[in-house]
């Protein structure tokens, strides 16, 4: 058993931590979030230069031969700084689909662009009526000569305003919610018939409603095989969940540290509020929630390449535990900050908001609890 990071991983963590500290302080983040573009392409370029965008890819694919643990390291630091750049959608999701199922030509076409930072992806999987069920799809892709015609509406596609390409899940056959008949496509955002409605999100990112109206795509935009993509989608989403759990851990760590620090400084009744036992014990509870979340994030990350049922159980467990902790820690952090916790000026409220939205991404606590129940029943 070994829970240590390699020396190299330690160096990556340090350099990313420095970058976030020096160039992604809270005031800078605020101005970026409020700016026209909403993100910082120059930071993305720096991440590429540091090699971070190529870490989880094999050397054969032009990457650095790393693993999901590397994504964990990146996302934890992202979480600490509330970094908004689209690592999960581009590197973990798009990269994941290409890595696991892309043809050589597709890899050659896109991975180099991901690794050097020139190509940014968004993952369009959710639909207005589908809730968190990855198979609940009304978007269709119909055979059209050699290629396909895509039609449908994807909801709250995170990072889409910044993306040049979209990974889209669609139904090539079967009925809504069938597990068969699902396929994955890589679609340039500027393809004819794609329209977007862009907007900011409550946690400081950008998203779009994406509409496909008879969008013609060539045969080679299909990733993997036609009609059998659900297990692939589930795998990539599990990898994204593990990465986002790491992000939540980073955000929880900072929210907890800030709260403890605030309770040392803030005096009421002639004493630091941190000297009141009722608050001390609650900060202890927050701390335990955080530590348990880190453990579950490790578990999920280390099980990603295991047998399917093992992977799913570990990821579902992590998403439940971390989702609960994210609510708990976010709420307690605001409460212990008192009125100051409610202000836009202080960072703590922004950590609270990010932790709130974390729960609804890729399935909330209830969704993954059900998943755990049915996996356990099947075992």
């Amino acid at each position, binding site marked *: 058993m070994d829970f240590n990071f390699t020396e190299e991983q330690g160096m990556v963590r340090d350099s990313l931590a420095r970058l976030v500290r020096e160039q992604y302080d809270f005031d800078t983040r605020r101005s970026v979030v409020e700016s026209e573009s909403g993100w910082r392409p120059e930071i993305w370029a720096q991440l590429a230069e540091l090699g971070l965008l190529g870490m989880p890819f094999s050397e054969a694919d032009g990457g650095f031969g790393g693993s999901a643990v590397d994504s964990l390291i990146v996302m934890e630091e992202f979480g600490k700084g509330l970094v908004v750049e689209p690592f999960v959608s581009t590197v973990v999701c798009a990269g994941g689909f290409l890595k696991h199922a892309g043809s050589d030509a597709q890899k050659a076409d896109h991975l180099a662009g991901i690794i050097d930072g020139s190509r940014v992806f968004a993952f369009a999987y959710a639909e207005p009526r589908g*809730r968190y069920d990855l198979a609940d799809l009304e978007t269709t892709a119909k055979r059209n000569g050699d290629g396909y015609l895509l039609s449908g509406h994807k909801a709250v596609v995170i990072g889409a305003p910044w993306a040049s390409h979209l990974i889209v899940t669609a139904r090539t056959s079967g009925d809504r919610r069938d597990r068969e008949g699902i396929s994955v496509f890589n679609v340039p955002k500027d393809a004819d018939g794609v329209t977007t409605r862009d907007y900011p999100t409550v946690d400081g990112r950008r998203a779009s409603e994406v509409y496909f109206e008879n969008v013609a795509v060539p045969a080679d935009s299909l990733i993997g095989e036609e009609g059998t993509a659900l297990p692939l989608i589930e795998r990539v989403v599990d990898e994204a969940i593990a990465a986002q759990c790491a992000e939540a851990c980073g955000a929880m760590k900072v929210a907890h540290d800030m709260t403890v620090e605030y309770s040392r400084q803030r005096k*009421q*009744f002639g004493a630091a509020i941190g000297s009141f036992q009722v608050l001390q014990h609650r900060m202890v509870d927050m701390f335990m929630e955080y530590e348990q979340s880190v453990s579950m994030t490790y578990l999920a990350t280390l099980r990603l390449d295991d047998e399917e049922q093992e992977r799913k159980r570990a990821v579902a467990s992590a998403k439940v535990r971390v989702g609960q902790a994210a609510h708990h820690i976010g709420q307690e952090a*605001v409460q212990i900050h008192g*009125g100051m916790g409610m202000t836009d000026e202080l960072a703590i*409220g922004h950590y609270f908001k990010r932790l709130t939205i974390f729960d*609804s991404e890729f399935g*909330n606590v209830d969704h993954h609890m059900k998943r755990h129940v049915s996996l356990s029943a099947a075992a």
Partner: protein
Amino acid sequence: MNLEFSPEELAFRDEVRAFIEENYPDHLRNIGLREDLGREDMLAWHKILGEKGWSVPAWPVEYGGAGWTPTQRYIWSEENARVNAIMPLPFGVSMVAPVIYSFGSDALKEQHLPGIRSGDVWWCQGYSEPGAGSDLASLKTTAVRDGDHYVINGQKTWTTLAQYADWGFFLCRTDPDAARPQEGISFILVDMKTPGIEVRPIKLIDGGYEVNETWLTDVRVPVDNLVGEENKGWTYAKFLLAHERSGIAGVARSKRGVEQLREIAKTETLDGEPLISDFDFARKVSQLEIDLAALEITELRTLAGEQAGRGPGPESSILKIKGTEIQQRLTELTLEAVGHYGTPYYRAVADAGSNEYPIGPDYAQHSAATYFNMRKTSIYGGSNEIQRNIITKMILGL
């Protein structure tokens, strides 16, 4: 013991319901407590009620109160909640007015009660300061006698909706040498247009501006604006807080909120079925309803106690704690119910003056902002930790 309404009470309910149906402004129906409301919106219903004589039902009849029994008042708030009515703001009606009619001079009663009743005068509460939150008695803002004026200096914060206020009630230190900090504080009414007052907005995490910093520099206020006795302000402040807390339970509004949550959960789907038929989700809604029923009956017991002449005491802390926990849970579940559509930042979309089609369903639009905003309820009005301290001391005797 009996929970049923009497025939008179049922008749009263019908009368109230009909009045609301006919008179509540259409454009303000079912918009709840959205933060983008302006002064006129927030006062519209209050003014209509003022004319009817129903704006301040809990006041003693001699000052314009309706003389309703606790049950009638309960029916009243239920019926208003049915349309999500924007009820009269508490600062005038249920906070400063009871202090004025209980402790103020006749001149102050004559000057202020009519405007509060009619909804023409907007009040704000100047208690908290940057260094005096939970420990309110440590407040530093001073009021120094200069002839027949007080000269006030200091900084207040979190002053809710002070941007619209005509008058404010302020706690100021009039005796810095008092033996206990509580003994040197006075309760003073201040015309917000007096020179030397500056109100600066504070942005909250939901993106709205409902609170302010209020700076007072050499603000000259007539000594006649003192309520009751000098240096006895703490007594009045505590009296007021007990009133504030019972209003804070928000039972009727939460019941309406649960109904709306059920509606949303009938529309949202999970595995192709309505979300409300999902046991996990339905169970959480039921838990909320059960907690709400417990709170409701507890509030009715408190009201009945009041009717029997026992003023709201430390028991009102129970209503504050449980009421706010339920409000927070309700908004959290509502956000959960809307799934992905809790994520868009609708205020930014609205601010951009967009006339495009809305993003996602209507009911999702304020779900995140409302959830974020409602975290305030366990902080303000004496935080829930402070309420528990009050129960510890006053009820458990520890």
